[in-house]
């Protein structure tokens, strides 16, 4: 019996992920700030799949609360799997105009992720079991004009996950990095120029499958691996001129 702990469980992809995990027979812990909303999602899971679904308050930037959160998760019996979905993205123009917003972007997407994973890692290490999957972004593949603060946080997260993967591999705990392309979420609804968009359900199914197989890196949707490759190959002298 595995319990999936979903961090940032209110987002549409996280919700779809929780449904996919519950459909596969797992129990769920939904962690996030909007307790009322998470309560509705937990009810949905137990009505649909007759699984156990609990709500645990969690705030990515309440770093001091992360120890207690990890301690609470550590009391769960059976295997623990962690799925990290939280994140914020503001339009780059707003971030450029407001340094506080830049700091907040990093505080949630990078510091928050590092802090909570750093507290949870020993729990999994001690049990020598479980798994971690964390959602990064195409924005982290290369710093781009249109999204580089968010991108830098996700790039930092990707590097952190690489190291964590090496550490937890020694304890038999796989760590999967998701490189998310365009997903049809609240973050991207109505944005112009979207293409090759995946539904939350398709993305969630792919993320769960990759995590369960212990894959290191998975692109979602899969085709974005080739776009990432092209992005990486463009020489910096040319790349800086691109308005992407």
């Amino acid at each position: 019996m595995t319990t999936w702990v979903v961090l940032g469980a209110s987002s549409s992809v996280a919700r779809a992920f929780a449904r996919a995990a519950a459909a596969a027979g797992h129990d769920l812990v939904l962690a996030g700030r909007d307790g009322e909303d998470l309560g509705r999602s937990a009810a949905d899971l137990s009505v649909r799949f007759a699984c156990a679904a609990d709500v645990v308050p969690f705030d990515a930037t309440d770093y001091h609360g992360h120890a207690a959160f990890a301690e609470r998760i550590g009391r769960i019996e059976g295997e623990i799997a962690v799925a990290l979905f939280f994140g914020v993205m503001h339009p780059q123009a707003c971030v450029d105009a407001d340094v506080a917003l830049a700091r907040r972007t990093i505080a949630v997407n990078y510091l928050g992720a590092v802090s909570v994973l750093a507290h949870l890692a020993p729990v999994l290490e001690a049990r020598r079991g479980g798994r971690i999957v964390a959602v990064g972004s195409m924005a982290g593949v290369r710093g781009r004009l249109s999204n580089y603060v968010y991108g830098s946080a996700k790039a930092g997260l990707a590097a952190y996950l690489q190291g964590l993967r090496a550490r937890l591999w020694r304890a038999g705990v796989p760590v999967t990095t998701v490189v998310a392309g365009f997903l049809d979420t609240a973050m991207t609804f109505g944005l112009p120029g979207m293409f090759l968009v995946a539904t939350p359900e398709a993305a969630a199914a792919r993320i769960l499958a990759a995590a369960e197989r212990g894959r290191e890196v998975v692109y979602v949707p899969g085709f974005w691996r080739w776009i990432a490759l092209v992005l990486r190959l463009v020489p910096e002298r040319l790349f800086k001129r691109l308005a992407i």
Partner: protein
Amino acid sequence: MRLAGWGRVCAAETLACRPERLREVAAALAATPSGGIIARRGGRSYGDAALNGAGRTLLTRRLDRLLAFDPESGLLAAEPGVTLGELVRIFAPRGFLPPVVPGTGFATLGGAVAMDVHGKNHDRAGSFGDHLAWLDLMGPSGEVRRLAPGEPLFAATVGGAGLTGVVTALALRLVRAPAAVGVRERRIGDLDGFLAGLAEARATATYSVGWIDALARGRGLGRGILETAEPVEAPPPAPARGGLAIPCEAPGWLLNKASVAAFNVLYRRRVPRGGGRERVVPVARFFFPLDALCAWNRLYGRAGFHQFQCVLPDAHAETGARRLLETVAKGRPGAFLAVIKTLGGEGRGLLSFPMPGVTLAFDVPRRGGAEALLDACERIVRDAGGRVYLAKDARLSAAAFAEMYPRLEAFREALAIADPNARMGSDLARRLRMREP
């Protein structure tokens, strides 16, 4: 974002939002522009009920959670974006079904409230609003109120075309029923035969619906197939195959009188003469016959089609139905196939469609003469004292609407209290002057 009604005659360029949580719904209501806002999910209303070209559209797709289920009482609480097809898929294997389902499983709980939908069992079960224990309605101010049957705002919300606010949750009483039905089909020679068959089915059958060859004239006027169905305990049906999708716009000429006449003859002849035939099918296939064909509305080509559905009170059902079928059979562009059912009583909503009588529905391709034909049908329904169904309509006049829906004044009074600043709005509401004369 460009949105269209299912018949694709009506379309609107509209601002849209797609909240994923209640607080986002409240934020959207607070930021409503002058044209108001309307909730939309399945997009299965044929006309302009879920369009709001002057304002904003609130897509409830992501509000799709089941909130509680009590297997003792069958009471289910859920968010408005859950589709009825999904409920059937989840609960049929557990021995429960929604008490009322419309002809498509892509319709949602929110839409079922807004249109107080009916099914093939209206005589026995009434309409959707009859099976609600409560409704959570987020009013234009963002405040959620739990409404019980009997409250004026409940009656204005059921069948109220989404104008009283956004339903954020509702409690529906599911009924215990097996996952299959035994369907009996038999050929019917003419309209009199149909009305007699339906009258009998009213007293004896759980579900009944008729398919009429709307191209037949003269002695064959009203010929077709009458289907009745009863729940049966049957081995679990094989999982449904993925539906076929109509991949692209069909050319407008594909459905013409000759091709459809041929189809109608073949469709009728599937059913043997005399005793007809019986078979056991999964409930979903019986409830939602066209759902296996995704995007079937593309069959009518780019121009789209109108669907006309009316109810004729029992006293005038025979004359009214005859005049309608005659008008349609000789008219241009005409209609191809009509669906006939009986309805048992008035709904709980102030603007509920049903009344005791016979309901007829048919598609009218949008070609030259379609509007004149629909106007002629509207006159026949007015003469008979009947009603046109707002979920299908794109053409009715405000005057005819006021005449057909005698509780409109009470609706307007309730709406004036619930939404004094006209924050909710839709193309349908403006066309029919639902808010004020």
